[in-house]
């Protein structure tokens, strides 16, 4: 009988039920979309902040203290270098997955034909690596220096056959020496010389505008620095620092065992630095504060902003559903009055109405959930050009929210109607 009554109610009042289901679907799609976007926005903004370039710099231990202080301009004399063959190890540390990009630098002093001294820096442009994990990574300055404006020509393609005789010249130097794309420049280093074809001219808006960039091998040959690297710049996705991270950054030894584990297994910039130092011999890895610090702050603000907007829209959705359910229950006063008049218990009336509304809520909620996933993907693709990853956590949160909100919408209205006298209601008040 119960089932039959409910089925009948759905059939006869399908218009009203459709309205309720529609509103619940809207609310739940709103909640789903906002929750998924909110939970994923951190990762997405983190990716965008890659535009600011490397947040970790690795230098040899000796130079980090002494080189720039005492042997000014005489980097070739100190003899402190990192080893090129260790570069691959950076992708083997605990947080290897968070290392998005990195590139080595090696600078050799050289002179042009007219006697002008220039610094020739060897680096990766789009270095292709096949990692032991089976992944492939394209790393280099082409992505780490996204703010470089290529004025003429193009980036060096390392996969090209002649890449070792190509060079990219800074805009300031190119203007001074009247170099243009396609020219061949002859550079003489301390240990070798080379004819370089200019592949591109870039404007970096900084000190790099006075440099010539070539591949690592070319720069090493010029300076006789086989297998040596000056510095490495690493771009890692990190978690904003907290107290623990700050304490650890000063001295990892001061932590207790469990603290150490927490720190080591969290992607703080300091723990990633520490892990890089573990794999690269005699190196000092330090956070580039300008990037690392600011990143954390912007990330935090964006997340907080999204959380608050999400809360607002959830409140909106909740009140919207609540309102409609209350309104639709209240208009059934006559029906309830009639049921009471023919002897229905309060409990069975409540049960009947609740079941009806909850059935509608489930249908609406499920439909809304899928619609919400669609909305989230629209946001992801149109703003970040990538899909928003769906967290399973969204499902229970939305389900509980819809259930609670619907109940809150029903119960006060039902109770109010139950208190009415059937005769009055039936009489039309």
């Amino acid at each position, binding site marked *: 009988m119960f089932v039959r009554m409910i089925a009948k109610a759905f059939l006869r009042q399908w218009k009203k039920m459709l309205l309720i289901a529609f509103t619940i679907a809207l609310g739940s799609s709103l909640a789903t979309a*906002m929750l998924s976007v909110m939970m994923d926005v951190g990762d997405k903004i983190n990716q965008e902040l890659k535009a*600011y*370039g490397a947040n970790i710099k690795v230098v040899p231990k000796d130079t980090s203290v002494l080189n720039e202080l005492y042997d000014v301009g005489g980097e070739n004399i100190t003899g402190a270098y990192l080893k090129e063959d260790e570069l691959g190890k950076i992708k083997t540390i605990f947080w290897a997955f968070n290392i998005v990009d990195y590139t080595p630098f090696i600078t050799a002093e050289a002179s042009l034909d007219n006697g002008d001294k220039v610094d020739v820096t060897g680096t990766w442009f789009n270095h292709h690596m096949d990692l032991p994990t089976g992944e492939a990574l394209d790393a280099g300055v082409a992505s780490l220096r996204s703010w470089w404006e290529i004025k003429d020509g193009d980036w060096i393609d390392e996969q090209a056959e002649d890449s070792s005789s190509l060079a990219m010249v800074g805009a*300031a130097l190119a203007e001074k020496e009247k170099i243009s794309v396609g020219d061949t420049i002859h550079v003489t280093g301390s240990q070798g010389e080379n004819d370089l074809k200019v592949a591109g001219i870039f404007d*970096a808006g900084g000190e790099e505008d006075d440099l010539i960039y070539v591949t690592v091998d070319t720069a090493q040959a010029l300076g006789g620095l086989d297998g040596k690297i000056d510095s490495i710049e690493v771009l890692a996705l990190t978690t904003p620092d907290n107290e623990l991270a700050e304490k650890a950054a000063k001295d990892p030894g001061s932590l207790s065992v469990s603290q150490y584990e927490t720190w080591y297994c969290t992607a703080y910039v300091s723990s990633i630095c520490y892990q890089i130092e573990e794999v690269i011999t005699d190196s000092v890895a330090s956070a580039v*504060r300008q990037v690392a610090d600011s990143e954390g702050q912007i990330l935090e603000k964006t997340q907080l902003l999204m959380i608050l907007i999400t809360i607002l829209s959830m409140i909106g959705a909740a009140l919207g559903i609540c309102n409609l359910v209350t*309104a639709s229950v209240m208009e059934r006063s006559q029906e309830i009055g009639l049921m009471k008049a023919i002897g229905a218990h309060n409990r069975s009336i409540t049960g009947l109405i609740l079941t009806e509304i909850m059935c509608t809520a489930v249908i609406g909620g499920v439909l809304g959930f899928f619609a919400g996933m669609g909305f989230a993907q629209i946001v992801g693709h149109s703003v970040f050009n990538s899909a928003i990853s769906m967290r399973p956590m969204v499902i229970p949160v939305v389900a509980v929210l819809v259930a609670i909100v619907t109940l809150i919408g029903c119960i006060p209205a039902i109770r109010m109607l139950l208190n009415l006298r059937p005769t009055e209601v039936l009489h039309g008040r």
Partner: protein
Amino acid sequence: MKKRKMYFRMITASLLRRRSRMVIALLAISIGAMILSGLLTIYYDVPRQMRAQFRNYGANMIFTATGDSIIPEDVDKAAALIPSDKLVGMAPYRYDTVRINDRPVMAAATDMKGAEKTSPFWKVDGDWPAQSGEIMVGKNVAETYNLKPGKRVTCTFAPEKEEEKGPAAEAGENQGGTDQAAEATTEEEVVLDNYIDFTVTGILDTGGKEENYVYMNLQDMEELTGKETVYDICELSVSANAKELETIADQITESVDGINARLVKRVTQSETTVLTKLQALVLLVTVIVLALTMICVATTMTAVVAERRKEIGLRKALGASNKSIIAEFMGEGLVLGAVGGLLGSILGFVFAQVVSMNVFNSSITLMPWLVPLTVIASVLVTGLACLIPIRSAVDVDPALVLKGE
């Protein structure tokens, strides 16, 4: 005249008598209006607020000298060209080589208050130097000389001719290509070394080249070198978008002779990229949330009106024309819409303010035009939402409705 009076009376009486239903409708409308005005306020204010956050990346404009060095008057002149509400901070720098324990160290002199603003990411272990006689040392320098906050250190400066081209040139290179410091050091011919006893107030940790320098106040540098203050470089942090920045830079380079203003590409370019994305995100979210809430409001209004079919039937039976029924219902809807919209725009502003205080620690700018916009939008939505159910109700035969279908 009497007719209009009656009309108002009917509307107000209907609103007052059916209190519980009207509260529901009003609540729905004000929530919609609140979300509309709150989200729009946030959307318009986010770029401004976020831009302030992006200033944490440090200076986005630098002045370099066109000649040997920048004179302070030129900096003042140039700074006057930047709107004062956009200028976050300005720090002129002067570099020279000093000696600590007879070993050369690059010293930078600057306005500490300005440097604190242009380089908010500098982490100082201890305090910033506040008065003359205080010095802040880079982390690497501190390690080399074993310095800690509170310790004393003597800096000497030898004004005689000596080969100091190297470090100065390096400093010039680091900071944008000036090497006047080296030429300046060779000018004076005093045999005695100048020296000042400094107290170390803080250790500077930046992860960059700044860790190899010591930082002192401009007066101390003047005293130490015995030369009047001129700047090698000036860092500015300006809160403006890339286009505005370019205009400002061009204007300064053109109108102030001694200064060449340049943008720090890395900071400006990346800021534009990230900020555009952020704004697009908030816009899209706003649009989706708004569309959904408006539909929500509409469905609630539909439900509220639909239950009044009986009333409509009775009126028709009493001889009311369809037109007058629609006019009355619409009048009710409009009153509700206007009140709800007004209420909602106030609530929305409060919400935006709460968000702004929590996220950015600064209050939001009030946009008065949002109030009429919100009211109009909610009146429209309510009107549309009422119209659909009323029209279908009006077409019904009164006898059928009164009988109970």
